[in-house]
């Protein structure tokens, strides 16, 4: 294996090539941020399992391998995307292929006032708007991966919903990876970036959908920033279906204003090694966050979710529910931290993580944590890890269901509990079909990402 330090230096060297080549044309403020980000990455280096935040997840498979920055993108057609879309043809679709925005696959006509476009283009056409928000929510100080994403930030998807606007159609951002056939060559890394901003009183439903067009080894190092303005309401669904041989490390940074509502649902189904962090700041009085997660793992998949919900202001509500189904030799990790800052009185926070182990070799680690610095709050947490409940199986069998049907029902129930919390009916329906398909595939012994 190549020593870790070399991989780090390689990215620093790649960065030097990038700023003189791929990154030209960027505004100077962004160039400054990139320089700071690569410097921070060089300081931090890849995390090790000695760090508390990475106790259960080794990134050695990423750190000890060399990944090459992707260049350009292959041409795709809408037909390539149809089966992979969650929100369907009615949605306002934005497509990013191998980290590069694909205008010919993306919505051309938008409701008046809505911006939904390439991040690269937005930097040129709406520099003030982009500057006000981009990197404002994502902090790369503590994350080498976010720092690396920011260093190579050049394109992605940008959604801006102006004050008071209600976007009726769902917006779907598809981050599509087409891994190159890697005979001998270094596998590819992309640093996709999403920026979704709802101004005061705006309403929208957004799907962020990570898919691979074919199997292969690659690394997706993603960052998304989500800003929900005062009184705005956003339902945000993130679906991760990377190739089973792929790596994904990602962070979603969310910030909410006063009396805003964010319903954030994350579904992790793919990837060989996947890590997703959610940092959510309830930065306005009376804001409400519903954070749901579901992971379905099999084979040797490893999936790690780290969520931090930060109650900074009073009268905030956060309800977090993560359910995992872990089969075969897979390993699921969930760490949920709730911080209630001094002064964030009347916070109502609830955190639950349930894990269903489908084999004796499957493993799940669950770490709910509360950090409460205010005295007038209501906070609860709980977690479970275990196989199918024998009593529940017997209960279902005593009603005439076969052991197989009973087990399938209890297993699907873990997913259904999370799916039921997705408000948008069409999106929920598509997710139900997706998860049912995956579970059926699993019982047939299939191997699909």
């Amino acid at each position: 294996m190549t020593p870790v330090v070399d991989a780090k230096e390689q990215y620093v060297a790649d960065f030097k090539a990038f700023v003189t080549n791929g990154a030209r044309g960027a505004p100077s403020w962004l160039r400054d941020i990139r320089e700071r980000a690569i410097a921070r990455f060089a300081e931090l280096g890849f995390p090790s399992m000695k760090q508390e935040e990475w106790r259960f997840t080794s990134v050695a498979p990423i750190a000890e391998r060399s990944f090459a920055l992707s260049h350009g993108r292959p041409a795709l057609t809408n037909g390539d995307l149809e089966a992979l879309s969650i929100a369907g043809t009615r949605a306002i679709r934005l497509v990013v292929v191998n980290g590069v925005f694909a205008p010919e696959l993306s919505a051309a006509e938008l409701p008046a006032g809505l911006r939904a476009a390439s991040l690269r283009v937005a930097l040129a056409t709406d520099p003030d708007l982009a500057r006000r928000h981009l990197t404002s929510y994502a902090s790369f100080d503590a994350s080498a991966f976010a720092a690396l994403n920011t260093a190579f930030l050049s394109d992605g998807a940008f959604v801006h919903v102006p004050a008071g606007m209600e976007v009726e159609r769902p917006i779907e951002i598809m981050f599509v990876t087409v891994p190159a056939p890697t005979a001998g060559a270094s596998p590819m890394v992309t640093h996709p970036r999403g920026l979704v901003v709802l101004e005061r009183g705006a309403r929208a439903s957004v799907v962020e959908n990570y898919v691979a067009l074919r199997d292969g080894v690659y690394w997706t190092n993603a960052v998304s920033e989500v800003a929900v303005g005062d009184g705005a309401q956003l339902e945000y669904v993130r679906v991760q279906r990377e190739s089973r041989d792929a790596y994904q490390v990602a962070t979603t940074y969310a910030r909410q204003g006063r009396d805003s509502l964010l319903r954030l649902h994350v579904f992790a189904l793919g990837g060989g090694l996947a890590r997703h962090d959610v940092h959510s700041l309830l930065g306005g009085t009376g804001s409400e966050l519903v954070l749901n997660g579901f992971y379905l793992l099999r084979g040797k998949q490893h999936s790690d979710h780290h969520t931090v919900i930060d109650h900074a202001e009073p009268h905030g509500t956060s309800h977090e529910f993560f359910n995992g189904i872990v089969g075969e030799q897979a390993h699921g990790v969930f760490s949920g931290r709730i911080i209630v800052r001094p002064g964030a009185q009347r916070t109502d926070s609830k955190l639950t993580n349930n894990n269903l182990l489908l084999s004796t070799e499957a493993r799940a680690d669950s770490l709910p944590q509360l950090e409460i610095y205010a005295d007038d709050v209501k906070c609860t947490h709980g977690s479970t890890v275990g196989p199918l409940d024998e009593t529940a199986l017997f209960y279902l069998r005593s009603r005439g269901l076969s052991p197989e049907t009973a087990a399938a029902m209890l297993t699907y129930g873990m997913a259904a509990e999370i799916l039921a919390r997705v408000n948008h009916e069409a999106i929920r329906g598509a997710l139900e079909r997706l998860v049912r398909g995956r579970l059926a595939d699993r019982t047939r012994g299939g191997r699909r990402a």
Partner: protein
Amino acid sequence: MKPRLLEIRNLHASVDGREILHGVDLEVNAGEVHAIMGPNGSGKSTLAQVLAGHPAYTVTEGSVTFDGKDLLAMQPEQRARDGVFLAFQYPVAIRGITNAYFLRSAVNAVRKARGQEELGPLEFMETLEAKLKLIGWDDSYLSRPVNEGFSGGEKKRNEILQLAVLEPRLAILDETDSGLDIDALKTVAQTVDRLRRPDTATVLVTHYYRILTYVLPDYVHVLSGGRIVKSGTKDLALELERKGYDWLREEAAVG
């Protein structure tokens, strides 16, 4: 003569290597209601669970015949499809699965086994309406996950809803009356009584007399120390209500 539905002969059963039932005999004919009473820990719930086929219990001796067939040779789901129903003392919550979906799956599993056509969601809802009314529920309970967040009384009502929907030939009610307030008990018990048919039988496991005022038993049996120590008519239940169980233990010890 009424056809024999259930015949238990010298039934011994253990859990975790410990024998709970030490030779139970019981005969139940179609159309009859039997009450099984007894103090806590006498084996009442064990008997109910064994009849439903709970895998944690091992039958070490004896036989159980249901409608002429060897009940103990049947898997729990086969027993259910054949018409045996146990209303659980502690109904289980099933996360994520709505009551409507669960009920329809159960009904269709039974229908399929009987060679009947399965019901679609709409057809099923039609058959359900009258049954919901029986237990005094509206359909808001159908979209909730099975027993999840239900109160004790709601869970018991849900068991009776399943009884109404599945229409078994032998209904075993394991302390369905416990944890119910007076009004709920009345609704539940009257529903059980209304669901009786000449070709079905009911076994009520209880240690209270009250439910028997709504569902009048033909026979009352006292289970104590893993055996039926006394059988009689409804008058025995009245006597138990007055005198408690201790006199029976003494009687059994003397005899």
